């Protein structure tokens, strides 16, 4: 397969995943803004949303101050924000369009019509705050449709591996970043433990990655505590948003590629090491190591693995 084709497939899936993550973040922001008496709370929330998506500076440069309408617009539609949902969908489509023949007609149609519907959405939206729930629903639906079409219609060949890899590199990075932005609320604090504030913050965090209900299912009605949350978001193999889940997928698909091409790759050996390490970890160890440090080095490591993958498959030269 052409290196550029692999790269386009990878990035189209990555942008689709990013649009999905942003939609979920916005959903939390919206929820919080509906809760009375959290004036400063929601400001913080919107700020951390900007931080998680790594565009706080860009936003402040354009708008100077935190305002929820502006942030929502910035995250949804602003073409000057490279990570706005609009740009994510647009980029996903451009990437697919470049390799139009590497995906099935159904996948192309799903991405293409999302893009065309988005244009209509943008022109018809009058009040972003009021219409936010519908827009978020729409984004999530489109993403699920595209992903379902990929699962149902694509050949399970190397192109499929690159699509899936794009999804999970983005997800691993995103989950790590969202926990990292919020890591302070996961710290055990005498003042907070078991308090209302704690429960509220934790549930919001779980919601932001759509795992609130899942957490309840996984851990029953026991009391929520930060160790359980760390366990759930980082080490629980049944949680599709946990770090280990993404690592396992990346490991699996890089493994498939090395077998498919009959060539080893550094990316593969590195992710395998990481996966084995994660399997042996437990939440208490992470807490002892320091959650913040742990996440920081994870974000660097996963990026290094991506660099290896890029070098191996996207540059098209022998190593």
């Amino acid at each position, binding site marked *: *397969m052409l290196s550029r084709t692999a790269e386009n497939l990878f990035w189209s899936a990555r942008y689709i995943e990013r649009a999905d993550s942003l939609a979920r973040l916005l959903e939390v922001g919206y929820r919080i803004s509906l809760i009375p008496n959290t004036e400063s709370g929601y400001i913080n929330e919107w700020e951390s949303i900007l931080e998680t998506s790594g565009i706080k500076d860009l936003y402040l440069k354009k708008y100077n101050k935190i305002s929820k309408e502006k942030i929502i617009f910035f995250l949804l539609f602003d073409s000057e924000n490279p990570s706005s949902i609009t740009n994510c969908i647009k980029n996903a489509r451009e990437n697919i369009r470049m390799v139009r023949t590497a995906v099935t007609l159904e996948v192309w149609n799903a991405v293409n019509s999302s893009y065309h519907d988005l244009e209509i959405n943008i022109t018809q939206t009058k009040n972003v705050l009021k219409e936010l729930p519908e827009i978020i629903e729409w984004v999530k639906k489109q993403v699920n449709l595209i992903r379902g079409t990929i699962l149902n219609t694509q050949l399970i060949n190397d192109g499929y591996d690159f699509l899936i890899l794009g999804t999970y590199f983005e997800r691993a990075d995103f989950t790590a970043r969202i926990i990292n932005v919020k890591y302070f609320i996961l710290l055990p604090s005498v003042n907070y433990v078991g308090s209302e504030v704690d429960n509220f913050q934790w549930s919001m965090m779980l919601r932001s990655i759509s795992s609130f209900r899942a957490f309840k299912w996984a851990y029953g009605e026991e009391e929520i505590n930060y160790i359980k949350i760390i366990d759930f978001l980082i080490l629980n193999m049944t949680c599709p948003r946990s770090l280990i889940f993404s690592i396992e997928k990346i490991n699996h698909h890089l493994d498939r590629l090395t077998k498919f*091409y009959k060539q080893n790759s550094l990316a593969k050996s590195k992710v395998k090491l990481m996966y084995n390490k994660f399997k042996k970890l437990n939440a208490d160890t992470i807490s002892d190591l320091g959650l913040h440090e742990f996440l920081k080095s994870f974000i660097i490591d996963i990026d290094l693995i991506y660099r290896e993958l890029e070098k191996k498959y996207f540059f098209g030269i022998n190593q």
Partner: protein
Amino acid sequence: MYNEIYKNSKIRKPYNKIFDWAKSLPENVIVKKKNEAESLFKKIGITFSVYNNFNSTERLIPFDMFPRIISGTEWKKIEKGIVQRAIAINAFLNDIYHSGDIIKAGLIPDYLIYKNPSYEVKMIGFKVPKRVYSPIIGSDLVRIDEKSFKILEDNCRTPSGVSYMIENREIMMRMFPELFEKLKIETVENYPTYLLETLKSLVPKRCESDPKIVILTPGAFNSAYYEHSFLADLMGVELVQGNDLFVDENVTYMKTTKGPEKVDIIYRRIDDQFIDPISFDSSSLIGVPGLFDSYKSGHVNICSAPGAGVADDKAIYTFMPEIVKFYLGEEPILENVKTWKCYRYQDRKYVLENLQKLVVKEVHGSGGYGLMIGSQATKKELQLFKKKIIEFPENYIAQPILSLSTVPIFSKNDLSPRHVDLRPFCLVSAKQTKLVSGGLTRVALKKDSLVVNSSQGGGVKDTWVINE
């Protein structure tokens, strides 16, 4: 003005059945089918892109569902004529980049060739694989009366439109399957297979194994990008951009997930000057540095060959009858449109005296640039062209204002005649020269308009060759 469906105010035989069918359609069926067809085109993505900021509007080429029909007998003559011309064109190109016999024989003035902007000096003396310079030729034909199709121009570089020929047929078959059961319509679906065979036969000198073929596109922003990806898909070859390829020690490779893979044959859909920034236009970002050297050292073939465009230049066009006779010793089967060469005294005199009755064309212009239609020109324009012709006679040719034949289109719930032309696509391989039975019919949708270009309100029709 010749209306293709009538003969002595009766419907001509090839159109008999289709005319009855069109007349018997219940009202609004065509409107409905038209919407259906358009949404199909959009879904498949057969569009021309026009980009402005966020809003990329993707335009459809208007498609008319009344087919253009050519009888089997008529087609046989067209086919023979096109094949003859394609062989002659390649022989001509081979000659002018080698010994130049046709110039020595005094049939074409040397400056028309050697000073032609499309003549590529770097190609002199180079033996192109299998002596095929231009493997894909799209000549535009016009019909003047019942008897004669004439050639208006040849396209020897990278003619486009073949994807419409194939997709128009697909759509017609989906819309009106009953017609295809009743009538014996020749298929066009083999084109991609033939194209692949053709390219495959043109192996460069240093290619030992099964040749690796790619299509080279300028990229997704090119207006014909759909066609490039369509052909790549149907032939099962990679669609590459310049930066997907690189040259190392004169060997051309493409970058793949398995590492570099040697490329042997490139069907390029980019212009000569952009192929290689080292050998040609150094500002080209879509080319491949070193590709031309790789080509000249016999490691890769570039189709069509750089410099092949000189054969479709309008100045050379006027010599096509002589070219056919010189290389094949045969009379041309398809005639040129009558053309006056302004550098000849007698011709020039006639042109200057009859400007209002003529179309004057600049010889190196294309796409409607540098063209004056005498009957529609203002006094000022006429004066300007007069001056230009006197000053640089060798830069101009003139042709009569042609009345292209008409074929009906569905207009509201009725039929209404519109002017058409025809572009068949001829393939020249190492072993044979052939074309599928069909082509692209372009139609001027505006009443009385003679301009069939899609950029100026032209549409397309499915073209049927029917064997009686």
